[in-house]
């Protein structure tokens, strides 16, 4: 009975959590279009609902009812499975991401490793999609993203090692709690190099500008998902946004202290303690989402070889230096 109850509760939690998450993701597309619109001197969606607020729903309905085309020369099974792999991988990392003290579906001790591992799986979706489409552009896009995501995963993982060293734990809740023990309340300050590497690697890992080479619109038309349409296309789209949320949440948790407020701020403004933790978490999360959009509105795209050079020649050495520095600090302080 006990186990059944637990399973039942988990399912309910998961449903609620992912319902809210998907709503956030849907409205992130709206936010993207609005924010980029205003950056570019236009209004963004304005027609469906007041200020276009119902646009994401209209988009979802449209995409679901579109014809689902599978190219006749495609490897049909892999073609159909690829978007599912991408989305499942992107969403399942949220299972271990805490949004507040004890607000987490599964509080496992290797949370951070799990997130990184799952992020590694999502590259399969893209490679499969590119390969099974039997289209040259999709193939090139798939190859690009395989190389890109694998090399930036190294930088992403290494940039988080500093955090792990300081928190002495892989558990994400533990990492947040550890940060509030320091007077500055977030690992952003001691881990500024790590944070920089993380931000750049995060952009590359989620295939966003300036590293959106796998789907470089003007070069590869749409990259790995060029042959996809309708619901399957929207799954890839969802996966991309879910990955953005996942990385933003990771940045908020590992570097910005998650749902906690720095102690020195609470000392200065005691009323800040009254604000619920979830608000802080969402603020920090959406700051990073905004960063994604802001960068997209401003920067051009890197070239493939330049991207690789940045990854291997700049970010990974920087991350390694960060690890050494953190270890020295940790040893002597």
């Amino acid at each position, binding site marked *: 009975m006990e186990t059944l109850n637990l399973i039942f509760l988990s399912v309910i939690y998961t449903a609620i959590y992912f319902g809210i998450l998907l709503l956030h993701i849907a409205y992130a597309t709206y936010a993207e279009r609005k924010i*980029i619109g205003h950056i570019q001197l236009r209004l963004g969606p304005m027609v469906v609902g007041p200020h276009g607020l119902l646009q994401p729903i209209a988009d979802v309905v449209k995409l679901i009812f579109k014809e689902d085309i599978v190219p006749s020369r495609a490897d049909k099974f892999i073609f159909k499975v690829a978007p599912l792999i991408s989305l499942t991988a992107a969403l399942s990392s949220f299972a271990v991401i805490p949004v507040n003290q004890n607000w987490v579906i599964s509080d496992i001790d290797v949370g951070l490793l799990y997130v990184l591992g799952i992020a590694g799986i999502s590259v399969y979706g893209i490679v499969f999609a590119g390969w099974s489409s039997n289209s*040259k*552009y999709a*193939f*090139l896009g798939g190859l690009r993203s395989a190389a890109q995501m694998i090399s930036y995963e190294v930088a992403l993982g290494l940039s988080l090692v500093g955090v792990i060293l300081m928190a002495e734990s892989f558990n994400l809740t533990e990492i947040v709690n550890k940060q509030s023990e320091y007077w500055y309340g977030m690992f952003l300050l001691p881990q500024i190099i790590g944070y920089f590497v993380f931000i750049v690697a995060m952009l590359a890992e989620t295939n966003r500008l300036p590293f959106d080479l796998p789907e470089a619109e003007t*070069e*590869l038309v749409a990259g790995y998902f060029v042959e996809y349409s309708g619901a399957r296309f929207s799954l890839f789209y969802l996966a991309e946004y879910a990955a953005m949320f996942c990385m933003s949440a990771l940045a908020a948790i590992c570097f910005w202290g998650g749902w906690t407020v720095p102690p020195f701020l609470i000392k200065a403004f005691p009323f800040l303690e009254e604000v619920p933790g979830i608000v802080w978490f969402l603020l920090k999360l959406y700051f990073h989402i905004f960063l994604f959009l802001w960068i997209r509105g401003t920067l*051009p*795209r890197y070239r493939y070889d*330049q991207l690789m050079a940045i990854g291997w020649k700049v970010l990974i050495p920087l991350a390694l230096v960060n690890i050494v520095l953190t270890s020295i600090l940790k040893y002597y302080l």
Partner: protein
Amino acid sequence: MKNNNLAEKELIVNMGPQHPATHGVLRLVLEVEGEIIKKCTPYIGYLHRGVEKLSEDLTYVQSLPLTDRLDYLSSMVNNVGFALAVEKLVGINVPERAKFIRTIMSEMTRICSHLVWLATHALDIGAMTVFLYAMRDREYLLELFEMIAGARLTVSYSRIGGVRCDINDEFLDKLGKFINEFPDRVEEYETLIDRNRVWLKRTKGVGVISAEEAINYGLTGPVLRGSGVYYDVRKFFPYDAYDQVEFEVPLGKNGDIYDRYRCRMLEFRQSARIIKQCIEKIPSGSILAENAPRIRMPESPLKIDKQDINFEIYTEDKQIESFIEKFPEVYASVEAPRGELGFYIVCDNSSKPFRVRVRAPSFVHAAVLPKLCEGSLIADVIANIGSIDIILGECDR
């Protein structure tokens, strides 16, 4: 011990004619090895409408609107080019005011066209915001075109021997206001892209063409000047009012994408400078030469009989015929935003040209694409297409 199943094979990628970054209907067949281009073959002709052949069946005045459709982003300059050729052929002296109006319009067109180039070039490289910023300024100029010529893109504004309608003070005020603000706007674009390391990395040292090669390929316009060759039709063979205004011809040094970009950004400022001087110096007077050939609509109500209409039109052009014996062929060129746009016309004692040949800069520039692209990466192809700035309407004619 080479396994035949794993033998290396080049991948042939068909870029275009419906590719989003080939600016119209250019088709490039790329043989790639990984991301590196081994061979690049441009195919053109998807937008061929037979403008040159059509002109042989139309009178000189009737051919003029066809030139709008050559380079649809700078129709004003095309009109001027064709009109200049026919004026040279017939021996018409254009009134001073018309010359200044043409110069103003040509430079406005240059700004418009370069804005579209900047917008699409930046979009190709991934900077999306510049696109809409540039379109904002272009919109203002297009509205000015509409105000005077009645059309935004295909204006057909020039006439053989002058221009169609006069400009007024309201137009000059609005234009003056824009020209005063415009240099600041250009700086705004430069902050967005010129100080951007990603942009510099994508453009510096990419798509290099030396001065000698550029001359051998017959390049003109900013593409040639980006390689450091001093050639500008406006300076070498001044037409319209270009000999009465002061301006500089910006030159590049290395001949890479960045230098071509810089050249065009500096041309923005020079164009603004030319327009400013023209607004100050513009004389009053007539806008069409006395002896200019014109089309008049039949005065009596139109009859359904087709012969009547044709008759009316042809009789007006009879005056051309007397000149034709003296000048059987003519070549005149203008500095279009993309390079030297030349019109070569051969006559055969009738009111229609015997042969019209357009020397379109886009056609010449498209030929240099393989030279620029081979050995570089796929992403550079896009940057190169953007930097040589070809318009397929002009290329295919």
